[in-house]
C-alpha cells in the first residue's frame, strides 16, 4: 500500500474508532501545486489527505492551538517529530493526547529544488512516533556546512551580512507564528509595558527582533526551515538557526528535539558545569 493510501486508511480508522478527534495532515490547496495544513475531523474526509515533497509546513506548530479539542493524530516528518519532542519537553502537549503518524521524508521541495533547510537535515525520519506510515527514508548526505562562508567573515562583516538580510523584514512575524517553539501567550515583541523592542522597521529594531528570537531558539530550534520558507520577504532565517544550533552543540553538547527526558540545554542547571561563574 502506498504511503498516501496508508495515511488515508489510518486517518479514517482513527476517526471512525474515535481514537482521535482530529487528524492533522496536509491537503492540496486551491493554488495549483500548493498544499496546506488539513484538519480532518470526519472519517469520510480522510481521502483529502496527501503527503509528498510539498508538505513542508511544520504541523507541530498547530498542536498547542488544537489540543483543547481532545486527542489529535498528527502526521510527522523527522523535523516535525523533533518539534513534538520539544513541545513534550516543555510540557506544551501531553504524550497520551497525541497519536504520531510518522513518515520518512526525502526532503521538502521549493520551486522544484530541495529546500535549503533540508540540505543539512540529519533526521529525515521521525525520532518519536506511534506508527510509521512509510518505510524509513534513506539517510541523506548533508551538504557542505552552509555556515562556512559566513564564519570566514570578520565580526563586522558578519554583522553587515545579517543586517543586509534583515533590512527587508516587514515585521509580519510569519517566522514566529509558524514556529512550533513560539507558543508564548504574549511574545516579548508584543509586550507594551514595558516595550522591549521598537515597533519600526529601522535596522536596529529589526536586528533586535531577529537576534532576540535567535537567542530564544537556542537549544530548541530543530532547523525544520518552516520560518525561512514562510518568510514573505525571503530572509535567510536558517543562518540564525544553524549558527545558534551549532553553538549549542559545541558548548553544551546538546541537539534539540531528540529526547523528551533530556533537560533543555539552556534551562537546566548542572553543578558540574565547566563554567566557573555558574557554580
Amino acid at each position, binding site marked *: 500500500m502506498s504511503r498516501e493510501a496508508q495515511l488515508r486508511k489510518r486517518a479514517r480508522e482513527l476517526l471512525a474508532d474515535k481514537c482521535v478527534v482530529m487528524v492533522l495532515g496536509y491537503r492540496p490547496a486551491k493554488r495549483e501545486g500548493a498544499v496546506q495544513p488539513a484538519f480532518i475531523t470526519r472519517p469520510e474526509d480522510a481521502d483529502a489527505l496527501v503527503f509528498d515533497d510539498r508538505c513542508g509546513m511544520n504541523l507541530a506548530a498547530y498542536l498547542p492551538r488544537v489540543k483543547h479539542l481532545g486527542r489529535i493524530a498528527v502526521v510527522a516528518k523527522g523535523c516535525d517529530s523533533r518539534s513534538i519532542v520539544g513541545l513534550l519537553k516543555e510540557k506544551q502537549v501531553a504524550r497520551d493526547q497525541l497519536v504520531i503518524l510518522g513518515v520518512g521524508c526525502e526532503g521538502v521541495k521549493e520551486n522544484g529544488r530541495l529546500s535549503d533547510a533540508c540540505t543539512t537535515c540529519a533526521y529525515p525520519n521521525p525520532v518519536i512516533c506511534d506508527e510509521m506510515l512509510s518505510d524509513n527514508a534513506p539517510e541523506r548526505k548533508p551538504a557542505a556546512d552552509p555556515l562556512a562562508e559566513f564564519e570566514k567573515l570578520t565580526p563586522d562583516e558578519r554583522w553587515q551580512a545579517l543586517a543586509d538580510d534583515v533590512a527587508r523584514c516587514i515585521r509580519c*512575524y510569519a517566522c514566529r*507564528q509558524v514556529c512550533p517553539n513560539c507558543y508564548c501567550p504574549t511574545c516579548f515583541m508584543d509586550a507594551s509595558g514595558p516595550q522591549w523592542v521598537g515597533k519600526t522597521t529601522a535596522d536596529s529594531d529589526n536586528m533586535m527582533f531577529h537576534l532576540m528570537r535567535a537567542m530564544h531558539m537556542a537549544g530548541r530550534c530543530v532547523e525544520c526551515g518552516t520560518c525561512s520558507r514562510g518568510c514573505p520577504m525571503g530572509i535567510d532565517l536558517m543562518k540564525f538557526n544553524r549558527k545558534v544550533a551549532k553553538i549549542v552543540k559545541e558548548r553544551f553538547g546538546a541537539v534539540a528535539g531528540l529526547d523528551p527526558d533530556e533537560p533543555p540545554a539552556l534551562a537546566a542547571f548542572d553543578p558540574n558545569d565547566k563554567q566557573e561563574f555558574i557554580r
Partner: protein
Amino acid sequence: MTQRIVTAAALDKLVAEWAKSGAVYAPVKVKDWTEFRRISSLAEADLTRVNTKLSAKGLVFPQCETMFRFETNRPDKAEEVAQPGAQVVLGVRPCDAAGIAVLDEFFTGQGETDAYYQRRRERTVLVGLSCDAPADTCFCSAVGGSPAGTSGLDLLLTDVGGKYVAEPLADRGAALVDGMPEATAPDLAKKAELAGKAAAAMADRIDTRKLKGLLDAADGHPIWEELSLPCVNCGACTFICPTCHCFDMTDETRKGKGARIRVWDTCQSCMYSQHASGHNPRLAPAARFRNRTMDKFRYTVDMVGEVSCVGCGRCIRECPAAIDIRETVDVLLRQLSQSDAMQNADCKMQKSK
C-alpha cells in the same frame, strides 16, 4: 484625453527627465522577485514581472513614518518633519493603483483628512503598466478590476510590442507625455485585445454583492472556526495587501528628545484589539481571521461603497499556510448561501404552523 505612443527609447529619456526633478520609483529585480526601488535610469527597472513583492502602498503610506519630533519637557511644542518630495512611480500594476484609490477613499475621501497621507499622495504621480500575462494568483477581474484598469492612475502604459500606448487619466499624467505622437487605431485595437486576453485568463467574476449580503448576517457563523484553522495569525497578508491600511503610533524617546512614529499594524495580531482594561474582543484566532475577510468584502463596502480586495493575489502567494482568499470566498458563498436557505426554510415552516 488623447492616447499617445511612447517608444522604449522615449520612455528611457522621460525617466531621466523625471529623475531630475524628483524621485522615480520602479520595480527592480531583487533576488528572484521585484521590489519598488528608486531608479535613475530605465535600465535599472524590470517591468516584465507581474507583481512586486510588496505593493506600491508603501510609497504613499510608508510602513514607518515620523509624524513629528518633540522634547519630553516641552509638551506644548512639536517640530514638524520635512515635507516629502515629489515622486513618480513607474510600472504600477492596475491592481496596485486600484489599491491606492481605495487608500485615497480612506485617508482623504470623507470625514477627517489624513494630512500625512495627503501631502505625500499629492506629490505622487502614478504611471501604471497594463498586465498581459497574469500570474496564477491574479484575480483582479474577478473583483471588478481589469488588467488594464485605470483607477487611481495618472497615466497608463500598455506594452503593444516595443512601444507603449500611453493613456493619460489626469492632467499631470497628460503632462508627462505631452508632445508624444498620437496612438493610431491599430495601436488602440492591440491594447484592447491584450486586455481582453489577460482578463480571460483569470477566474470568473465573484458575486461581491451577494457575498456582502451573506456576510452581513454571518458574524457568529461556525464557518469561521473551520476556515481559520490553517491561519497562524501572522501579519503577512495585511502588510503585503495594497489596501490594508491600519496603523499604530509609537513614541521613541531618548535623552529627553523623541519622535512620534506611525507604523503599519495588523488586525491579525492579538495586540491589535487589546483594550486598556485587559479585555480583548478579538482574542480568538477565528475572530481575527474573520475580521480581515469581513473587512475586505463587507466593512469597506459599508464605509466607502466598494470591496477592498483588488485581486493582486499577494496574500495567496505569500501565506505561509497557503490560504487562498479565492477559496475562502468560494466556501463562504457556498456555505452561507446554504445556511441562509436553511434559515429561510425554517422561517417558512414556523410560519406555516
